């Protein structure tokens, strides 16, 4: 492994993603870095969906604002925004699977150059063929644009952007864009296209911690924050 590359903070990965979601969109945000995206979307004309069965979920609730009957999909107390609505679980996933989410932002353990990604089952966890699959597989196949938000490599320095996933996949060929602390990468039929790198990094730096071959975009830019 090369020496550690810092890149941008998790909050800035989230900001970069928020910039990619246009006003007027419906979006679902997963656990982890994706949840942070909501901080940057607050006040904008983007409607967030929560798998538990809510559209137009508002910011987290604290103290006396907590309502035990009002949570997001990560079981955090949240608030309402005007124009919100509630519905059942089957309706929530009818909406997701039916292609009504313009964007889904999910975390991942691995992403492959063919657009596969793995995020629900870690073989080392010794949980066999089980895992917290939750709504990830439905979101992965249902969203019109699936964005992955993650650290570029593991804490032990292993690459997470691979030629092929080695962990059990969540879905095949579904990822549109990858946002990491180091780079923004498009998944295209030709392969992974490196579009942006974090300030101070080169394309070579990013390739050095990426197993899959990166195609360098002709207009490679610094990450747009």
């Amino acid at each position, binding site marked *: 492994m090369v020496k550690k590359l810092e890149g941008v903070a998790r909050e800035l990965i989230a900001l970069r993603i928020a910039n990619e979601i246009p006003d007027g969109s419906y979006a679902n945000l997963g*656990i982890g870095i994706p949840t942070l995206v909501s901080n940057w979307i607050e006040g904008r004309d983007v409607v967030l969906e*929560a*798998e*538990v*069965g*809510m559209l137009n979920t508002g910011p987290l609730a604290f103290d006396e604002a*907590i*309502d*035990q*009957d*009002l*949570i*997001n*999909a990560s*079981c*955090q*107390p949240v608030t309402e925004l005007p124009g919100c609505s*509630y*519905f*059942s*679980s*089957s309706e*929530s*996933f*009818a909406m*997701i*699977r039916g292609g009504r989410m313009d964007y889904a932002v999910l975390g991942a353990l691995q992403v492959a150059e063919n657009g596969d990604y793995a995020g629900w*089952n*870690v073989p*080392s*966890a*010794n*949980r066999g*063929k*089980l*895992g*917290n*699959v*939750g*709504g*990830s*597989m*439905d979101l992965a*196949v*249902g969203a019109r644009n699936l964005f992955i938000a993650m650290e570029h490599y593991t804490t032990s320095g292993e690459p997470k952007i691979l030629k092929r996933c080695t962990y*059990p*996949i*969540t*879905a*095949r060929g579904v990822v549109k864009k990858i946002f990491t602390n180091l780079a923004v990468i498009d998944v295209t039929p030709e392969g992974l296209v490196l579009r942006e790198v974090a300030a101070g990094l080169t394309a070579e730096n990013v390739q050095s911690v990426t197993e899959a071959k990166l195609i360098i975009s002709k207009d490679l830019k610094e990450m747009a924050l």
Partner: protein
Amino acid sequence: MDKVFPSVEEAVKDIPDGATVGFTGFFTCGNPVYLTRALAKQGSKNLTIVVMQLGVGNDEINLLLENGQVKKAICNYPFYRSFSRQSLFEQLMKAGKVECELFPMGTFAEKLRAAGAGIPAFYTPTGAGTLLAEGKEARTFNGRECLMETALPLDYGLVHAWKADRMGNVVFRKTARNYNPDVAKAARITIVEAENVVEPGELDPDLIHLPSVYVTRVVKVDRPKINVTIEKS
């Protein structure tokens, strides 16, 4: 029609050994806490439980697991998020004492919906090409590979409601709705614990989430006091 039962104990009394029982709720929210405690007290064994999670933010499901009442669990979120933290279910599963069948959350909900709607099977793109496709029929529609999934009918459905009338019309509150309508419709016998019980005609007929035809029994309960977190110890 008056479907009101005097107590949760009476309402769950006839759930037999070996029954398939569905529970509503999403982590801490919308769980049938009183009915589940009554089932733990009642003690029927060899149950197949159908529920989103297995004790993660739901102490009542842990009661059933502790009592050894559960033979098999059908769920979509079985574990604590942390790999280092083992739930009671995880321990029992690894000891070979409880079986588990896992479905993606949307497929899980749709299987319940199908059971309620008289649809024996359906196709979904969710899960195609994954570990969870093993043993399932695959078929391509419009160039996209899908899996055939079958309905998941329940013998009993335990439901937590905000309001119910005596006939069994039900209204839920905010995200506590979640699996409630789906579990209620999938079950042959649907038992509703309701924080408020009113007379027929008091609920606006345009604004009923679960029509009376799906409800077998109604019991009045207090509003439960819930600690909204899944990572409590």
